[in-house]
């Protein structure tokens, strides 16, 4: 089984940055001043975890 943890990490980082930028521009900051850092950290961790946890791709 070949895994891509760094791709997952980078994807999570991008997702976090994008989500944080969306939240800022929508004036949504549920965690106050740490909203951006928390969202980016959580998404980065999520991306890394999903790179291991997502079901394997099926090949025809």
């Amino acid at each position: 089984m070949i895994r891509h943890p760094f791709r997952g990490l980078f994807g999570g980082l991008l997702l976090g940055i994008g989500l944080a930028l969306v939240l800022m521009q929508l004036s949504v900051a549920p965690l106050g001043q740490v909203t951006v850092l928390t969202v980016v950290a959580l998404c980065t961790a999520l991306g890394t975890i999903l790179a291991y946890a997502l079901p394997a791709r099926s090949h025809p």
Partner: protein
Amino acid sequence: MRSSLVRAFSIGTILILALAHPVAAFELNGGCTLEIASTDATGAPLDLASGPGAGGGGTQSDPFLVDWDGGVSWVGSSGEQVFNNHGWQTFVFLVPTPVRGGDPNEDDETVGTGTVGVGENAPFRITGLYYVSGTIDGEGGTHCDGSGWLQLTGNTVTTIPFWLAVLIAVAGAALIWSSRPHAGGTTVQGRVS
């Protein structure tokens, strides 16, 4: 000729400096003070904030309102401190920004004033709620720091930066999806005729 990027940054710089330099905004420590006012597109008063002190505005629940087509003016004082050979740094949501610098302040100035048009040189309209903070340190241990919330008013979903942010998030999600594990092992090489 300055690039559009430099111009975009210059307006952002001035706006953030209005909130964070030479004294940061609203929650101020170190003896510095700041009074700040914004106007709308017609030049009519929009919002006021001052610090330090309760009820000055610029909090998350009562952010300092800024109109992209309007202006911002400020009066800042470093109190009894004189910031010689100082350096300053700004942050947005605690993330350091390229907006930083320093000055020898050879004239020993302790008061700064200014006015700037918010979006007059920027290529994109930006809206949203932002936590801005900053610090300034000078010779002899002089120091001030502070923070505040500002809200750029407007319709977010009609701005380019919003959709760029959506695009970044979607790209990230797609990258995560493509990071799914797959079976490895033998590689079959051959030609299809």
